[in-house]
């Protein structure tokens, strides 16, 4: 827990000089109480994960002999390699990549297109469109399931795009619903962001006769890089973490992305908590990488969407 990416500098907030404080006595006892509370909470918060790590590192023979709630006599990474091969995790990871990468790219492309038009041109339907896109992302996923299931099992797809010949049980189907579902949130965030870019920047290009496409692709998008980076981080995590769409719209277990395959894996390793823990932690690796490297981006994306109109 030492390699933490610092969150936004002023979120943590060093006390600015000159801020007034209560008298020294109450300040110190208050601070000790605060730290005591925070330490207890932090330990409680870490215990489930630390326990999982501990269990995953113990050989099955050790836990069988001494029980799980005991001092480990030996530690090993064997459970990880076992889970990796036995659970066919590389294949499942690849399924996740095939869904997450196109979904993130296309979502950002679509959302930035809509956001650009909404932010830069006065349409009669601007507000209605924003409302439509934003609200769609807030619906519980299950509300949409019945008609989606009907659509997915009835729409034919060329066989080079889908082994099943229909949208149901195909990678492209899961990619499509992820795009549709996430675009709303990104339109909302990006249109707000684009409004903060001064119009004058594109004004000059307009005089030069730049087309709408040039203004979008060459002038506006590069200025949106911070927002796009934050959203890309957020979307990658969310789509990688999505459990529901592939669970309900795919039926072939080996085609499912890794998060939706968790249930099958849990069933497979049900008799062996050591393997199950190792498997769970392997699945967590991609988001833990984001957590350690891109936590700032992730939080920026999250708060951009929810705290600023």
């Amino acid at each position, binding site marked *: 827990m030492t390699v933490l990416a610092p969150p936004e500098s002023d979120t943590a907030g060093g006390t600015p000089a000159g801020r007034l404080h209560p008298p020294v006595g109450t300040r110190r006892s208050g601070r000790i109480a605060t730290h005591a509370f925070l330490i207890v909470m932090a330990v409680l918060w870490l215990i489930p994960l630390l*326990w999982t790590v501990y269990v995953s590192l113990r050989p099955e023979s050790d836990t069988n002999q001494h029980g799980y709630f005991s001092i480990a006599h030996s530690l090993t990474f064997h459970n990880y390699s076992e889970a990796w091969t036995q659970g066919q995790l590389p294949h499942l990871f690849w399924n996740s990549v095939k869904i997450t990468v196109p979904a993130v790219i296309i979502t950002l492309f679509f959302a930035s297109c809509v956001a650009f038009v909404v932010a830069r041109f006065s349409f009669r339907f601007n507000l209605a469109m924003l409302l439509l896109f934003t609200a769609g992302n807030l619906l*519980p996923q299950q509300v949409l399931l019945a008609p989606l299931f009907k659509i997915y099992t009835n729409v034919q797809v060329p066989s080079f795009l889908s082994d099943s010949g229909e949208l149901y049980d195909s990678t492209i189907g899961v990619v499509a619903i992820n795009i549709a579902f996430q675009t709303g949130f990104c339109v909302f965030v990006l249109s707000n962001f684009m409004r903060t870019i001064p119009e004058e920047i594109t004004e000059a290009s307009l005089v030069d006769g730049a087309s709408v496409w040039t203004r979008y692709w060459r002038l506006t998008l590069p200025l949106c890089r911070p927002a796009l980076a934050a959203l890309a981080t957020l979307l990658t995590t969310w789509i990688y973490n999505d459990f529901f769409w592939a669970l309900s719209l795919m039926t072939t277990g080996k085609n499912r992305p890794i998060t939706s395959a968790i249930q099958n894996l849990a069933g497979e390793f049900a008799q062996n908590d050591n393997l199950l823990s190792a498997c769970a932690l392997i699945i967590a690796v991609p988001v833990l990488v984001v957590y350690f490297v891109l936590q700032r981006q992730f939080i920026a994306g999250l708060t951009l969407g929810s705290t600023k109109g």
Partner: protein
Amino acid sequence: MSADTATPTAAPRRRRRRSVRRLTGRDRVVITLMIIVPLLLDIALIWGPAVATVFLSFTDAHGIGPIHGVGTQNYHVVRTIDPEFWPAVRHNVLWLVEFTVIATPLGMLLAVLLDRGIRGSRIYQSIFFLPVMLSLALIGIIWEVVYSPQFGLINGILHNTKPGSAIDWLGDPKLNLWSVLVEATWRQTGYVMVLYLAGLKAFDPALREAAQIDGANGWQLFWKVTFPTLRPINIVIAVITVIESLRAFDLVWVTNGGTNGLELLSAMITQDITSAASRIGYGSAIGVVLLVISLVPIVTFLIVQFRRQDER
């Protein structure tokens, strides 16, 4: 990047934006395409289905075969016969109550404490934020290892892992909803904390100083000064709390498929539709119930967000 970058400039919006009419033909085609493709996808896969759910709920639709209208029969069965419906409603309500009474205040408390610039604030923040990154399905698995009756940590601490007498945290229908709510809180608290921290950052320290000069103590300072100025974010968090409790699904599904004490509306819909019987009409009726309830927080959110934009 800071969240502040999202604040629009003061220039009036109307004047800044150009009318579509002054564009060339090619530009107009480009603009139309940029809007229409995402819009069609959104309508085909989000709003179309949301509306279609309502129609399907008045039919006997199944996976295959013709569809017949059955009037309000599905709703009647849901309300009066289905033994899972009212427990599911109760569980969704309990989920909301728990989030409102425990997870949200706890997240707010952590944010307020950590915003004071105490030592190690960033490390604490990162620890509480860690579960927010994990998928709920994975959280369900991690806690299964903790709750396991024979091999788990909690029963290990309690020194009772004997089959038969050991507490089955996730299996006992009187207990398992609370066990799962602990898992949900583990994640939700960090989420609320991060949102409040962002809100507090925008809080003007001069207000706090003024109150302190007037002799306000920490408690008064929070309730009389900080909390009221956080009103916009309080509303957003209230909305998120309601939506997250209506969306609750992954944890119960991973644990036992949403049965035996863990019934939720979302899980009932999924069971009806993805099971071999594929009762699409019936599942739609429950979907409509969930849709109607979730429109309340959604509309609230839209009004708050877009009214704020208009004020700018």
